[in-house]
């Protein structure tokens, strides 16, 4: 599969009380066309910011460091002028958000909002745009698209609103769809339908999806590859079954163990001690060290390098590196 997206040395900083604070710290990863890559981590680890950085929509006063490189199909997005970047948004990269309830303009009917997404990038008559939007609503499973075109956001349920968001996102058949916690705010039954819709769209339109979530269940359903993030850095990357069944990084391991469904009945739930550190004062070396059960002397001094376990699985952890050195599998 051709390479779609190449992110290298991406850093995002915010002004803190004493100088600028790096919230996303030197992230690099690649995505193949048609692939579903999931960015997983607890809230506050910088995964949503990474997504926004790709769209160059980091809110003021945040800033994407100039050294960051984001190449989409060979085109370097960081060098684009503002109007050119605006054309990329919606046309080549689209995004859907976590809170459908407030993501749509409350004083405008949903139909025209999607029409606007079309007409920003294409010169088409309003009648033709309306027809395409109704066809889009059909495709994303919104019943009675003609009536729904005129209804206002407060007249739709959460699920329906998310479907409108998806329709809006895929209206220009973008190369990459970024889904920032698409199901978190929805109740379980609707979650499954949305996941089903995303999988179906990904397969029919060949759109690659960057799925931002902390819900490992959704990852299991949808993701091809997984990228674990902790405290602004990637700590482990690999295929879905590699990460979910054979996690090597202590944090991923701890995360999986604390899923209730996995614990036996009556047993205390496992949990990772300590709290996610605040960006104002990152711990030195490996940022998970203070909470890591297999902490070594070097972990607090040196930032672990990315170790290639095999062609598709890599991890950044001194303990793993040490155990490999001793020949353990």
């Amino acid at each position, binding site marked *: 599969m051709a390479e779609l997206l190449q992110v290298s040395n991406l850093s995002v900083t915010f002004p803190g009380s004493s100088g600028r604070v790096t919230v996303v710290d030197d992230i690099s990863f690649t995505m193949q066309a048609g692939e579903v890559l999931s960015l997983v981590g607890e809230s506050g680890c910088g995964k949503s910011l990474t997504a926004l950085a790709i769209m*160059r929509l980091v809110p003021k006063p945040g800033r*994407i460091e100039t050294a960051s490189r984001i190449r989409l199909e060979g085109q370097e997005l960081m060098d684009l002028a*503002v109007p050119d*970047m605006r054309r990329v948004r919606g046309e080549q990269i689209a995004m859907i958000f976590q809170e459908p309830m407030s993501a749509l303009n409350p004083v405008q009917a949903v139909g025209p909002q999607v029409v606007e997404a079309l007409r920003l990038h294409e010169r088409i008559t309003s009648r033709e745009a309306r027809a395409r939007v109704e066809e889009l609503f059909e495709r994303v499973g919104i019943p009675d698209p003609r009536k729904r075109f005129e209804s206002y956001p407060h007249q739709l349920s959460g699920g329906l609103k998310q479907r409108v968001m998806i329709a809006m996102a895929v209206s220009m058949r973008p190369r990459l769809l970024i889904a920032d916690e698409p199901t978190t705010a929805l109740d379980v039954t609707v979650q499954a339908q949305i996941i089903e819709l995303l999988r179906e769209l990904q397969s029919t339109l060949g759109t690659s999806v960057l799925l931002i979530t902390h819900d490992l269940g959704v990852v299991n359903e949808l993701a091809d590859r997984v990228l674990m993030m902790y405290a602004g850095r990637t700590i482990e990357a690999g295929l879905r079954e590699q990460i979910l069944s054979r996690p090597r990084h202590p944090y991923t391991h701890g995360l999986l163990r604390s899923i209730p469904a996995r614990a036996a009945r009556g047993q205390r739930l496992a949990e990772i001690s300590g709290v996610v550190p605040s960006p104002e004062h990152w711990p030195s070396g490996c940022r998970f060290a203070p909470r890591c059960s297999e902490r070594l002397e070097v972990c607090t001094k040196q930032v672990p390098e990315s170790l290639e376990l095999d062609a598709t699985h890599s991890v950044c952890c001194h303990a793993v590196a040490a155990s490999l050195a001793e020949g353990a599998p």
Partner: protein
Amino acid sequence: MLQVVSACSNDPYPSDDQTRKVLYRAFPEAPKTLDPAVAYTTSAHAITGNIYEGLLEYDYVARPYQLVPALATGVPEAVSAPDGTIRYHFELRPGVRYADDACFELSESESSKSESSHSEIPDSPGSTPTTRSVTTRDLEFSFQRLADPAVASPIAQNFAKIRGFRQFSANLEQRRERDASFAARPPHEQYALVGGIEGVHLLNELELDLVLDAPYPQLLYWLAMPFTAPVPWEAVAYYDGEEGRPHFRDHPVGTGPFVLTRYNKQALMVLEQNPRWREWPQPAPGHIAPLGPRAGSRLPFIERVEYRREKEAIPAFGKFLQGYYDGSAIIEESFDRVIQEDQLSSDMAERGMRLEKSVEPGIYYLGFNMDDPVVGAPAGERGRKLRQAMSLVIDIDELSRLFLNGRGVPANSPVPPGLFGYDPEYRNPYREVDVERAKQLLIEAGYPGGIDAETGRPLKLGFDTPDTTSTAQLRSQFHIDAWRSIGIDVELRATTYNQFQEKMRNGAFQLFRWGWIADYPDPENFLFLLESSNGRTRSGGPNTANFSNAEYDALFAEMKDRPNDERRGELIREMQSILERERPWIELYHPEDYSLVSPWLENVKPFGMSYPMLKYYDIDPDERARLRAEWNQPIVWPAYALAGLSVLIVVPGIFTFFRERV
């Protein structure tokens, strides 16, 4: 914005008036009424004085004031008959007609109905007559209106001496109460039915006699005022305020040189030439000969007079300096630019302005409430000494320097300059400034250093004034500081108008400030302000100080009806010595009016007593247009600077916007 500014001009008048003989004046307050029998304020007389004409008028130039005939053919002498009555004989000038007005169709239908009244040859056959000749019947009608209680003329009591005057108003009142249908009829019919005033005796269409029960020389002065001007009964009947027609008080119809063509009380009053004025062939009255070459030709010289409403004095004066008003009083604020060392400043002289000074017959004074136990008569000798002490510290020269720019004649007695009985050499000892003597008097009055024995603290008095404007309060503070310098603590109580009246009515005040402008140039019109029967608390009269002194009253009674002879002068001097000692008033000043006249306005002679003589004024419109253009070049460069500055501020912002919104 730039385009607007460059096209702007501050000329408030339509351009086609530039070359016309139009006089522009400002007025602060619209008159309450223009009914000649009722209108009493200077702003009202400014209009009625030009629309109505009385039997007599004042000589425009002669000082002291001189009565000359107007509608009458001559100034009559008082003829006393054996039975003690006084008779004045008047002969009306023939051919005098009213200004054209719609109300005269009534006279056409009226005359056809009752043949008895004078038949009138219409100008052109068939057209309804728009005017009518003035006859003695009109004069009788205007006297009857003065007596009519419903008209409520404020000066009616001055004519009480005309035989049958009070009787007529009493008959009218009773008849109206008894007979409702009578009350509904138009006024002139009511007057005719009740039988007229006995003392107003019509000999024929052009001659009448006024018969008085007792001598009243001031009567002639009243005949030179709009109160007694002939009034057409048709106007009073026609303009009754119904069905959209204006009320008579807002629609004057007279015989004078001007006619009121526009009357918007909030913004604009316009007087235009009355074509029917004094058609009889006669050169302008001789007595204005000294006014220059145009004296011989036909009056009035001006086409139109526009009075525009200016509520604030400063902008009005500002526009006068820009040439948009043709004359203006000098406001206190700009006095020092206009007047240096008591004559025109160089800047003003160069502009060609002319200064006119005139002393208005009036007086401003501080008064004590003579009924008050502390400052009044009940305090006896202590009160008198206190009043004398307080009078000795009011420095009128300092007051005039601070607040009146040196204008105004210091007053020593109620009678103002220009009137009989005014003695320029008389110096009231208690109006000199003598702080030591004042302190001494206080000790004698039992208030050593101002301390009141009972309270052990400075004597506390109340000073009431209805004027809540801040400049008036500053003046009151000036007086208070003077009294505090000798230890008397005076508290200023500036209340709203109705609270002030309340206090005056029930005598709940100690000190107050008041003023009085003459109705007619006679000392009686000032000295009656201290005569006991006019006491404010007693009869609601203008004697606000409630001064009552038997000796003063007796002298007043003898003086008031005497002709201006030596005996009258003696009486006035005696009354002044009583006032000097008793100190009911602290006389302040007689107002002096400085006014500026624009270079293009000619024949202007300030008159005081508000008798505007617009008919003599003349204008050179071309000179005015030239000077206006010269004085009003707008300075436009700041507009461009402002625009440049705002662009300068915003541009860097736009630049950073695009750079940052990466």
